[in-house]
Protein backbone atom coordinates (compact mmCIF):
# COMPACT_ATOMS: atom_id res chain seq x y z
CA UNK A 1 0.00 0.00 0.00
CA UNK A 2 2.73 2.34 0.89
CA UNK A 3 4.52 1.64 -2.39
CA UNK A 4 1.41 2.41 -4.39
CA UNK A 5 1.22 5.73 -2.69
CA UNK A 6 4.83 6.47 -3.52
CA UNK A 7 3.88 5.90 -7.15
CA UNK A 8 6.19 2.81 -7.79
CA UNK A 9 4.11 0.43 -9.87
CA UNK A 10 5.49 -2.76 -11.51
CA UNK A 11 4.49 -3.89 -14.91
CA UNK A 12 3.84 -7.65 -15.22
CA UNK A 13 6.95 -8.00 -17.30
CA UNK A 14 9.13 -6.13 -14.89
CA UNK A 15 7.83 -8.04 -11.93
CA UNK A 16 8.21 -11.33 -13.75
CA UNK A 17 11.74 -10.44 -14.77
CA UNK A 18 12.62 -9.57 -11.20
CA UNK A 19 11.12 -12.80 -9.93
CA UNK A 20 12.97 -14.71 -12.66
CA UNK A 21 16.22 -13.01 -11.70
CA UNK A 22 15.59 -13.70 -8.06
CA UNK A 23 14.78 -17.37 -8.63
CA UNK A 24 17.52 -18.10 -11.11
CA UNK A 25 20.15 -16.31 -9.03
CA UNK A 26 19.11 -17.93 -5.80
CA UNK A 27 18.88 -21.48 -7.26
CA UNK A 28 21.48 -21.70 -10.06
CA UNK A 29 22.27 -25.44 -9.60
CA UNK A 30 20.51 -27.53 -7.07
CA UNK A 31 20.02 -31.21 -6.33
CA UNK A 32 16.35 -32.19 -6.20
CA UNK A 33 14.69 -35.44 -5.32
CA UNK A 34 11.14 -36.53 -6.14
CA UNK A 35 8.96 -38.82 -8.16
CA UNK A 36 8.45 -38.47 -11.91
CA UNK A 37 4.91 -38.20 -13.29
CA UNK A 38 3.19 -36.99 -16.47
CA UNK A 39 6.30 -38.02 -18.38
CA UNK A 40 6.11 -37.26 -22.08
CA UNK A 41 8.52 -36.99 -24.98
CA UNK A 42 7.09 -34.90 -27.86
CA UNK A 43 8.54 -34.88 -31.36
CA UNK A 44 11.28 -32.45 -30.33
CA UNK A 45 12.90 -35.28 -28.31
CA UNK A 46 12.99 -33.28 -25.08
CA UNK A 47 11.40 -34.78 -22.01
CA UNK A 48 8.66 -32.96 -20.17
CA UNK A 49 7.43 -34.15 -16.81
CA UNK A 50 6.53 -33.09 -13.33
CA UNK A 51 8.43 -33.97 -10.25
CA UNK A 52 6.50 -34.30 -7.07
CA UNK A 53 6.43 -35.42 -3.50
CA UNK A 54 3.43 -35.86 -1.23
CA UNK A 55 2.70 -32.16 -0.85
CA UNK A 56 4.00 -30.30 -3.91
CA UNK A 57 4.61 -30.47 -7.63
CA UNK A 58 7.12 -28.70 -9.89
CA UNK A 59 7.21 -28.84 -13.69
CA UNK A 60 10.44 -30.11 -15.14
CA UNK A 61 12.14 -30.55 -18.46
CA UNK A 62 15.25 -32.35 -19.66
CA UNK A 63 16.64 -31.50 -23.06
CA UNK A 64 17.64 -34.05 -25.65
CA UNK A 65 21.37 -33.38 -25.34
CA UNK A 66 21.48 -33.97 -21.62
CA UNK A 67 19.25 -37.02 -21.91
CA UNK A 68 21.72 -38.81 -24.22
CA UNK A 69 24.18 -39.06 -21.37
CA UNK A 70 21.71 -40.94 -19.18
CA UNK A 71 22.26 -44.68 -18.73
CA UNK A 72 18.58 -45.37 -18.13
CA UNK A 73 15.22 -44.18 -19.38
CA UNK A 74 13.18 -42.10 -16.94
CA UNK A 75 9.68 -43.49 -16.36
CA UNK A 76 6.54 -42.45 -14.53
CA UNK A 77 6.61 -43.34 -10.87
CA UNK A 78 10.40 -43.53 -10.80
CA UNK A 79 12.04 -41.86 -7.82
CA UNK A 80 14.99 -39.82 -8.94
CA UNK A 81 17.71 -37.53 -7.71
CA UNK A 82 18.80 -34.96 -10.22
CA UNK A 83 20.84 -31.81 -10.69
CA UNK A 84 18.80 -28.93 -12.09
CA UNK A 85 18.60 -25.19 -12.38
CA UNK A 86 15.40 -23.32 -11.75
CA UNK A 87 14.04 -21.31 -14.65
CA UNK A 88 11.05 -19.08 -15.13
CA UNK A 89 9.34 -18.97 -18.51
CA UNK A 90 8.12 -15.44 -18.82
CA UNK A 91 5.45 -15.80 -21.54
CA UNK A 92 3.50 -18.22 -19.33
CA UNK A 93 4.60 -16.98 -15.95
CA UNK A 94 5.55 -20.49 -14.94
CA UNK A 95 8.73 -21.79 -13.47
CA UNK A 96 10.31 -25.16 -14.04
CA UNK A 97 13.33 -27.22 -13.21
CA UNK A 98 15.69 -27.81 -16.10
CA UNK A 99 17.52 -31.04 -15.31
CA UNK A 100 21.12 -31.53 -16.35
CA UNK A 101 21.52 -34.95 -14.80
CA UNK A 102 19.25 -37.63 -13.37
CA UNK A 103 19.78 -40.86 -11.58
CA UNK A 104 17.37 -43.26 -9.98
CA UNK A 105 17.12 -43.00 -6.25
CA UNK A 106 18.24 -46.08 -4.36
CA UNK A 107 19.51 -48.51 -7.00
CA UNK A 108 22.23 -47.04 -9.18
CA UNK A 109 21.38 -45.99 -12.66
CA UNK A 110 23.49 -48.82 -14.06
CA UNK A 111 21.34 -51.30 -12.22
CA UNK A 112 18.16 -49.69 -13.49
CA UNK A 113 19.56 -49.57 -17.01
CA UNK A 114 20.45 -53.26 -16.66
CA UNK A 115 16.95 -54.20 -15.58
CA UNK A 116 15.40 -52.06 -18.32
CA UNK A 117 17.52 -53.60 -21.04
CA UNK A 118 16.87 -57.06 -19.65
CA UNK A 119 13.13 -56.51 -19.77
CA UNK A 120 13.34 -55.07 -23.26
CA UNK A 121 15.41 -57.93 -24.65
CA UNK A 122 13.29 -60.54 -22.90
CA UNK A 123 10.26 -59.00 -24.58
CA UNK A 124 12.04 -59.25 -27.93
CA UNK A 125 12.62 -62.95 -27.28
CA UNK A 126 16.41 -62.70 -27.03
CA UNK A 127 16.49 -65.04 -24.03
CA UNK A 128 14.09 -67.65 -25.38
CA UNK A 129 15.36 -71.22 -25.23
CA UNK A 130 14.07 -71.73 -28.75
CA UNK A 131 16.68 -69.20 -29.96
CA UNK A 132 19.57 -70.98 -28.25
CA UNK A 133 21.86 -72.72 -30.71
CA UNK A 134 23.14 -76.18 -29.80
CA UNK A 135 26.75 -76.35 -28.66
CA UNK A 136 28.77 -78.88 -30.66
CA UNK A 137 29.90 -81.74 -28.50
CA UNK A 138 33.42 -81.71 -29.84
CA UNK A 139 34.37 -78.43 -31.55
CA UNK A 140 37.31 -78.67 -33.90
CA UNK A 141 38.09 -74.97 -33.45
CA UNK A 142 37.21 -72.45 -30.78
CA UNK A 143 37.44 -68.67 -30.91
CA UNK A 144 38.05 -66.94 -27.62
CA UNK A 145 37.01 -63.31 -27.42
CA UNK A 146 38.55 -61.77 -24.34
CA UNK A 147 41.29 -59.54 -23.12
CA UNK A 148 44.52 -60.70 -24.73
CA UNK A 149 46.40 -60.37 -21.49
CA UNK A 150 44.00 -61.11 -18.69
CA UNK A 151 43.87 -64.13 -16.41
CA UNK A 152 40.68 -65.21 -18.16
CA UNK A 153 42.49 -66.14 -21.39
CA UNK A 154 45.22 -68.00 -19.51
CA UNK A 155 42.62 -69.94 -17.53
CA UNK A 156 40.76 -70.88 -20.69
CA UNK A 157 43.93 -72.02 -22.48
CA UNK A 158 45.07 -74.05 -19.45
CA UNK A 159 41.77 -75.78 -19.00
CA UNK A 160 41.41 -76.40 -22.73
CA UNK A 161 44.87 -77.96 -23.03
CA UNK A 162 44.29 -80.07 -19.95
CA UNK A 163 40.99 -81.42 -21.24
CA UNK A 164 42.01 -81.65 -24.85
CA UNK A 165 45.77 -81.38 -25.37
CA UNK A 166 45.55 -80.97 -29.13
CA UNK A 167 42.84 -78.33 -29.22
CA UNK A 168 42.77 -75.52 -31.75
CA UNK A 169 42.08 -72.12 -30.28
CA UNK A 170 42.03 -68.64 -31.83
CA UNK A 171 42.37 -65.79 -29.43
CA UNK A 172 40.69 -62.53 -30.50
CA UNK A 173 42.04 -59.91 -28.13
CA UNK A 174 39.56 -57.14 -27.33
CA UNK A 175 39.22 -54.45 -24.74
CA UNK A 176 36.85 -55.78 -22.13
CA UNK A 177 36.13 -52.44 -20.48
CA UNK A 178 36.07 -48.83 -21.48
CA UNK A 179 34.44 -47.04 -24.32
CA UNK A 180 35.95 -49.10 -27.13
CA UNK A 181 35.05 -52.34 -25.53
CA UNK A 182 31.51 -52.65 -26.91
CA UNK A 183 32.53 -52.12 -30.50
CA UNK A 184 35.57 -54.38 -30.29
CA UNK A 185 33.52 -57.22 -28.92
CA UNK A 186 30.88 -56.77 -31.63
CA UNK A 187 33.57 -56.64 -34.33
CA UNK A 188 35.26 -59.76 -32.98
CA UNK A 189 31.96 -61.69 -33.02
CA UNK A 190 31.39 -60.54 -36.60
CA UNK A 191 34.95 -61.53 -37.57
CA UNK A 192 34.46 -65.06 -36.29
CA UNK A 193 31.13 -65.37 -38.09
CA UNK A 194 32.37 -63.95 -41.38
CA UNK A 195 35.92 -65.25 -41.66
CA UNK A 196 37.11 -67.74 -39.07
CA UNK A 197 33.93 -69.82 -39.04
CA UNK A 198 34.93 -71.57 -35.83
CA UNK A 199 32.64 -74.14 -34.26
CA UNK A 200 32.30 -72.14 -31.07
CA UNK A 201 32.92 -68.75 -29.50
CA UNK A 202 33.86 -68.26 -25.87
CA UNK A 203 33.18 -64.71 -24.74
CA UNK A 204 35.00 -64.24 -21.47
CA UNK A 205 36.10 -61.72 -18.94
CA UNK A 206 37.26 -61.84 -15.33
CA UNK A 207 35.19 -60.44 -12.51
CA UNK A 208 34.54 -56.76 -12.05
CA UNK A 209 32.10 -54.16 -10.87
CA UNK A 210 28.87 -53.46 -12.70
CA UNK A 211 30.65 -50.53 -14.40
CA UNK A 212 33.53 -52.78 -15.48
CA UNK A 213 31.10 -55.22 -17.02
CA UNK A 214 29.11 -52.53 -18.80
CA UNK A 215 30.13 -53.68 -22.28
CA UNK A 216 28.65 -57.09 -21.51
CA UNK A 217 25.46 -55.39 -20.44
CA UNK A 218 25.18 -53.31 -23.60
CA UNK A 219 22.47 -53.66 -26.16
CA UNK A 220 25.03 -53.67 -28.98
CA UNK A 221 26.82 -56.76 -27.62
CA UNK A 222 23.48 -58.42 -26.89
CA UNK A 223 22.49 -57.90 -30.53
CA UNK A 224 25.83 -59.23 -31.79
CA UNK A 225 25.46 -62.38 -29.67
CA UNK A 226 21.88 -62.90 -30.74
CA UNK A 227 22.76 -62.54 -34.42
CA UNK A 228 25.86 -64.75 -34.28
CA UNK A 229 25.54 -67.98 -36.31
CA UNK A 230 28.41 -69.49 -34.35
CA UNK A 231 27.20 -70.64 -30.92
CA UNK A 232 28.51 -68.56 -28.03
CA UNK A 233 29.36 -69.60 -24.49
CA UNK A 234 29.83 -66.75 -22.06
CA UNK A 235 32.07 -66.86 -19.03
CA UNK A 236 31.92 -63.42 -17.56
CA UNK A 237 32.95 -62.38 -14.08
CA UNK A 238 32.42 -64.53 -11.04
CA UNK A 239 29.78 -67.11 -10.36
CA UNK A 240 27.29 -64.61 -8.99
CA UNK A 241 27.65 -62.11 -11.84
CA UNK A 242 24.95 -62.29 -14.43
CA UNK A 243 25.29 -60.03 -17.47
CA UNK A 244 22.93 -59.36 -20.35
CA UNK A 245 25.46 -61.21 -22.52
CA UNK A 246 24.96 -64.28 -20.28
CA UNK A 247 21.22 -64.21 -20.83
CA UNK A 248 21.52 -63.90 -24.60
CA UNK A 249 24.34 -66.44 -24.99
CA UNK A 250 23.58 -69.99 -26.09
CA UNK A 251 25.19 -71.30 -22.93
CA UNK A 252 26.28 -69.46 -19.83
CA UNK A 253 29.25 -70.57 -17.76
CA UNK A 254 29.81 -68.99 -14.35
CA UNK A 255 33.51 -68.28 -15.01
CA UNK A 256 35.97 -68.28 -17.94
CA UNK A 257 37.42 -71.62 -16.72
CA UNK A 258 33.98 -73.16 -16.57
CA UNK A 259 33.32 -71.91 -20.10
CA UNK A 260 36.39 -73.80 -21.31
CA UNK A 261 35.17 -76.94 -19.52
CA UNK A 262 31.74 -76.67 -21.11
CA UNK A 263 33.29 -76.01 -24.52
CA UNK A 264 35.66 -78.96 -24.71
CA UNK A 265 35.09 -82.57 -23.76
CA UNK A 266 37.72 -84.35 -21.67
CA UNK A 267 39.83 -86.21 -24.23
CA UNK A 268 41.09 -88.91 -21.84
CA UNK A 269 37.60 -89.53 -20.68
CA UNK A 270 36.40 -89.87 -24.27
CA UNK A 271 39.24 -92.20 -25.22
CA UNK A 272 38.48 -94.32 -22.18
CA UNK A 273 34.81 -94.41 -23.13
CA UNK A 274 35.61 -95.47 -26.70
CA UNK A 275 38.08 -98.11 -25.42
CA UNK A 276 35.43 -99.50 -23.11
CA UNK A 277 33.02 -99.68 -26.02
CA UNK A 278 35.68 -101.41 -28.16
CA UNK A 279 36.30 -103.94 -25.41
CA UNK A 280 32.57 -104.52 -25.15
CA UNK A 281 32.41 -105.15 -28.89
CA UNK A 282 35.26 -107.66 -28.74
CA UNK A 283 33.87 -109.40 -25.70
CA UNK A 284 30.33 -109.52 -27.05
CA UNK A 285 31.42 -110.94 -30.41
CA UNK A 286 33.53 -113.59 -28.66
CA UNK A 287 30.61 -114.52 -26.45
CA UNK A 288 28.34 -114.65 -29.47
CA UNK A 289 30.69 -116.98 -31.36
CA UNK A 290 31.29 -119.13 -28.29
CA UNK A 291 27.56 -119.45 -27.69
CA UNK A 292 26.88 -120.36 -31.30
CA UNK A 293 29.71 -122.92 -31.22
CA UNK A 294 28.28 -124.46 -28.08
CA UNK A 295 24.93 -124.58 -29.76
CA UNK A 296 26.31 -126.34 -32.83
CA UNK A 297 28.18 -128.84 -30.68
CA UNK A 298 25.11 -129.52 -28.64
CA UNK A 299 23.03 -130.09 -31.74
CA UNK A 300 25.75 -132.29 -33.29
CA UNK A 301 25.82 -134.49 -30.24
CA UNK A 302 22.10 -134.92 -30.51
CA UNK A 303 22.22 -135.93 -34.21
CA UNK A 304 21.55 -139.78 -34.64
CA UNK A 305 23.37 -142.00 -37.13
CA UNK A 306 21.21 -144.46 -39.17
CA UNK A 307 22.98 -147.34 -37.36
CA UNK A 308 21.75 -146.05 -34.06
CA UNK A 309 18.25 -145.74 -35.43
CA UNK A 310 18.28 -149.34 -36.73
CA UNK A 311 19.76 -150.52 -33.50
CA UNK A 312 17.05 -148.76 -31.59
CA UNK A 313 14.36 -150.35 -33.70
CA UNK A 314 15.94 -153.79 -33.32
CA UNK A 315 16.09 -153.36 -29.63
CA UNK A 316 12.48 -152.38 -29.57
CA UNK A 317 11.50 -155.33 -31.70
CA UNK A 318 13.34 -157.72 -29.41
CA UNK A 319 11.71 -156.19 -26.48
CA UNK A 320 8.25 -156.61 -27.99
CA UNK A 321 9.07 -160.17 -29.00
CA UNK A 322 10.15 -161.24 -25.56
CA UNK A 323 7.14 -159.59 -24.04
CA UNK A 324 4.89 -161.40 -26.52
CA UNK A 325 6.41 -164.80 -25.66
CA UNK A 326 6.13 -164.18 -21.99
CA UNK A 327 2.55 -163.22 -22.36
CA UNK A 328 1.82 -166.37 -24.30
CA UNK A 329 3.60 -168.61 -21.75
CA UNK A 330 1.76 -167.04 -19.00
CA UNK A 331 -1.55 -167.52 -20.81
CA UNK A 332 -0.94 -171.19 -21.44
CA UNK A 333 0.18 -171.82 -17.91
CA UNK A 334 -2.85 -170.17 -16.53
CA UNK A 335 -5.24 -172.12 -18.70
CA UNK A 336 -3.51 -175.39 -17.90
CA UNK A 337 -3.93 -174.76 -14.24
CA UNK A 338 -7.52 -173.93 -14.76
CA UNK A 339 -8.09 -177.10 -16.71
CA UNK A 340 -6.49 -179.24 -14.01
CA UNK A 341 -8.51 -177.64 -11.37
CA UNK A 342 -11.73 -178.21 -13.29
CA UNK A 343 -10.98 -181.86 -14.04
CA UNK A 344 -10.29 -182.45 -10.39
CA UNK A 345 -13.53 -180.86 -9.61
CA UNK A 346 -15.22 -183.06 -12.16
CA UNK A 347 -13.61 -186.20 -10.77
CA UNK A 348 -14.95 -185.53 -7.33
CA UNK A 349 -18.45 -185.47 -8.79
CA UNK A 350 -18.30 -188.71 -10.95
CA UNK A 351 -21.26 -191.33 -10.72
CA UNK A 352 -19.15 -194.29 -9.51
CA UNK A 353 -18.39 -192.41 -6.48
CA UNK A 354 -22.02 -191.69 -5.95
CA UNK A 355 -23.02 -195.32 -6.39
CA UNK A 356 -20.45 -196.48 -3.95
CA UNK A 357 -21.63 -193.92 -1.50
CA UNK A 358 -25.23 -194.98 -1.91
CA UNK A 359 -24.30 -198.56 -1.52
CA UNK A 360 -22.46 -197.73 1.59
CA UNK A 361 -25.51 -195.82 2.72
CA UNK A 362 -27.80 -198.77 2.01
CA UNK A 363 -25.49 -201.03 3.97
CA UNK A 364 -25.53 -198.66 6.83
CA UNK A 365 -29.27 -198.42 6.69
CA UNK A 366 -29.82 -202.22 6.52
CA UNK A 367 -27.45 -202.76 9.37
CA UNK A 368 -29.33 -200.22 11.32
CA UNK A 369 -32.58 -202.00 10.37
CA UNK A 370 -31.37 -205.37 11.65
CA UNK A 371 -30.07 -203.87 14.79
CA UNK A 372 -33.28 -202.11 15.44
CA UNK A 373 -35.35 -205.19 14.61
CA UNK A 374 -33.41 -207.42 16.96
CA UNK A 375 -33.58 -204.90 19.64
CA UNK A 376 -37.34 -204.57 19.23
CA UNK A 377 -37.73 -208.34 19.04
CA UNK A 378 -35.89 -208.80 22.28
CA UNK A 379 -38.05 -206.24 23.91
CA UNK A 380 -41.28 -207.86 22.59
CA UNK A 381 -40.11 -211.31 23.68
CA UNK A 382 -39.30 -210.24 27.17
CA UNK A 383 -42.66 -208.49 27.34
CA UNK A 384 -44.33 -211.72 26.11
CA UNK A 385 -42.60 -213.84 28.69
CA UNK A 386 -43.56 -211.45 31.39
CA UNK A 387 -47.13 -211.24 30.17
CA UNK A 388 -47.32 -214.97 29.72
CA UNK A 389 -46.25 -215.52 33.24
CA UNK A 390 -48.86 -213.09 34.36
CA UNK A 391 -51.38 -214.90 32.19
CA UNK A 392 -50.50 -218.21 33.70
CA UNK A 393 -51.35 -216.93 37.04
CA UNK A 394 -54.60 -215.58 35.79
CA UNK A 395 -55.62 -218.69 33.78
CA UNK A 396 -59.15 -219.93 34.82
CA UNK A 397 -58.08 -223.53 34.43
CA UNK A 398 -55.62 -222.93 37.20
CA UNK A 399 -58.52 -221.77 39.34
CA UNK A 400 -60.51 -224.77 38.25
CA UNK A 401 -57.72 -227.03 39.42
CA UNK A 402 -58.10 -225.58 42.82
CA UNK A 403 -61.78 -226.84 42.70
CA UNK A 404 -63.55 -223.88 41.25
CA UNK A 405 -65.95 -224.41 38.30
CA UNK A 406 -67.76 -222.34 35.76
CA UNK A 407 -71.42 -222.54 35.10
CA UNK A 408 -72.84 -221.45 31.82
CA UNK A 409 -75.87 -221.79 29.75
CA UNK A 410 -75.70 -224.59 27.31
CA UNK A 411 -77.58 -222.61 24.76
CA UNK A 412 -75.56 -219.54 24.52
CA UNK A 413 -72.63 -220.38 26.66
CA UNK A 414 -73.41 -217.38 28.84
CA UNK A 415 -71.60 -217.52 32.18
CA UNK A 416 -73.94 -217.61 35.15
CA UNK A 417 -72.94 -215.32 38.02
CA UNK A 418 -76.27 -215.09 39.84
CA UNK A 419 -78.79 -217.91 40.56
CA UNK A 420 -81.72 -215.77 39.68
CA UNK A 421 -80.69 -215.72 36.12
CA UNK A 422 -81.73 -219.33 35.93
CA UNK A 423 -85.00 -220.93 35.78
CA UNK A 424 -86.15 -224.40 36.74
CA UNK A 425 -85.16 -227.08 34.23
CA UNK A 426 -82.51 -224.91 32.49
CA UNK A 427 -79.71 -226.94 31.19
CA UNK A 428 -76.54 -225.83 32.65
CA UNK A 429 -73.00 -226.79 31.65
CA UNK A 430 -70.53 -226.97 34.40
CA UNK A 431 -66.96 -226.70 33.38
CA UNK A 432 -64.59 -228.57 35.75
CA UNK A 433 -60.85 -228.72 35.93
CA UNK A 434 -61.19 -231.82 34.02
CA UNK A 435 -64.33 -232.62 31.93
CA UNK A 436 -67.79 -231.01 31.97
CA UNK A 437 -71.09 -231.76 33.40
CA UNK A 438 -74.50 -231.14 31.93
CA UNK A 439 -77.08 -230.63 34.60
CA UNK A 440 -80.58 -229.39 35.20
CA UNK A 441 -81.84 -226.92 37.55
CA UNK A 442 -84.02 -228.40 40.26
CA UNK A 443 -84.35 -225.78 42.75
CA UNK A 444 -83.27 -222.29 42.89
CA UNK A 445 -82.08 -220.84 46.10
CA UNK A 446 -81.82 -217.25 46.00
Amino acid at each position, binding site marked *: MTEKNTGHIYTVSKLTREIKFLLEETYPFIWVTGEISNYSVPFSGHSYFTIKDRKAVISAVMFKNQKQKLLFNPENGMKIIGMARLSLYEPRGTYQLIFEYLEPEGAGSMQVAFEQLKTKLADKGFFDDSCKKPI*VFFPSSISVISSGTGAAVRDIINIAIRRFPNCS*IDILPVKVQGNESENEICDAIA*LVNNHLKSDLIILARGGGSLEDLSAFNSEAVANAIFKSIVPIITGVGHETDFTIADFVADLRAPTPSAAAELALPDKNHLIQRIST*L*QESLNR*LLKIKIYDLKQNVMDLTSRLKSPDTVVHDFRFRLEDYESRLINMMKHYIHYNKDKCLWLSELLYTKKPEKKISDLRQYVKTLSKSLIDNFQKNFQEVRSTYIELNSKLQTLNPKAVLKRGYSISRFVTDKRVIRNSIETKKNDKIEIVLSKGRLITRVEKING
Partner: protein
Amino acid sequence: MVKKTFETSLKELEEIVRQMESGDLCLEDAVKKYEAGMKQSKYCLDLLDKTEKKISRITNDKDGNIKKLPFEDK
Protein backbone atom coordinates in the same frame (compact mmCIF):
# COMPACT_ATOMS: atom_id res chain seq x y z
CA MET B 1 30.18 -90.70 -47.22
CA VAL B 2 28.85 -87.62 -45.47
CA LYS B 3 31.29 -86.58 -42.78
CA LYS B 4 29.78 -87.45 -39.46
CA THR B 5 30.28 -85.42 -36.34
CA PHE B 6 32.15 -86.94 -33.49
CA GLU B 7 29.03 -86.99 -31.35
CA THR B 8 26.96 -88.83 -33.97
CA SER B 9 29.67 -91.44 -34.39
CA LEU B 10 29.99 -91.94 -30.65
CA LYS B 11 26.21 -92.35 -30.31
CA GLU B 12 26.22 -94.88 -33.17
CA LEU B 13 29.01 -96.79 -31.50
CA GLU B 14 27.07 -96.89 -28.22
CA GLU B 15 23.94 -98.02 -30.04
CA ILE B 16 25.87 -100.83 -31.77
CA VAL B 17 27.22 -102.04 -28.42
CA ARG B 18 23.72 -101.91 -26.97
CA GLN B 19 22.35 -103.96 -29.85
CA MET B 20 25.11 -106.54 -29.43
CA GLU B 21 24.37 -106.70 -25.70
CA SER B 22 20.75 -107.46 -26.39
CA GLY B 23 22.09 -110.72 -27.83
CA ASP B 24 19.40 -111.56 -30.34
CA LEU B 25 21.47 -110.86 -33.44
CA CYS B 26 22.33 -113.63 -35.86
CA LEU B 27 26.02 -114.30 -36.38
CA GLU B 28 26.19 -112.46 -39.71
CA ASP B 29 24.56 -109.38 -38.22
CA ALA B 30 26.74 -109.57 -35.13
CA VAL B 31 29.87 -109.65 -37.26
CA LYS B 32 28.56 -106.76 -39.37
CA LYS B 33 27.77 -104.76 -36.24
CA TYR B 34 31.17 -105.57 -34.81
CA GLU B 35 32.94 -104.35 -37.94
CA ALA B 36 30.78 -101.22 -38.06
CA GLY B 37 31.44 -100.59 -34.36
CA MET B 38 35.19 -100.97 -34.76
CA LYS B 39 35.08 -98.61 -37.72
CA GLN B 40 33.14 -96.03 -35.69
CA SER B 41 35.48 -96.25 -32.74
CA LYS B 42 38.51 -95.86 -34.99
CA TYR B 43 36.84 -92.89 -36.65
CA CYS B 44 36.12 -91.33 -33.23
CA LEU B 45 39.68 -91.83 -32.02
CA ASP B 46 41.03 -90.44 -35.30
CA LEU B 47 38.85 -87.36 -34.93
CA LEU B 48 40.14 -86.84 -31.42
CA ASP B 49 43.74 -86.94 -32.62
CA LYS B 50 43.23 -85.17 -35.92
CA THR B 51 43.11 -81.64 -34.49
CA GLU B 52 46.47 -80.02 -34.30
CA LYS B 53 47.40 -78.11 -31.20
CA LYS B 54 47.35 -74.56 -32.37
CA ILE B 55 46.77 -71.46 -30.35
CA SER B 56 46.85 -68.30 -32.42
CA ARG B 57 46.23 -64.65 -31.90
CA ILE B 58 43.95 -63.11 -34.47
CA THR B 59 44.28 -59.43 -35.17
CA ASN B 60 42.55 -57.20 -37.58
CA ASP B 61 44.29 -54.07 -38.82
CA LYS B 62 42.62 -50.88 -39.88
CA ASP B 63 42.36 -51.96 -43.51
CA GLY B 64 40.45 -55.08 -42.45
CA ASN B 65 43.33 -57.50 -43.02
CA ILE B 66 43.25 -60.43 -40.68
CA LYS B 67 46.55 -61.53 -39.24
CA LYS B 68 47.09 -64.84 -37.53
CA LEU B 69 50.11 -65.07 -35.22
CA PRO B 70 51.14 -67.63 -32.64
CA PHE B 71 49.77 -66.70 -29.26
CA GLU B 72 52.37 -65.86 -26.69
CA ASP B 73 51.33 -65.36 -23.14
CA LYS B 74 52.99 -62.33 -21.74
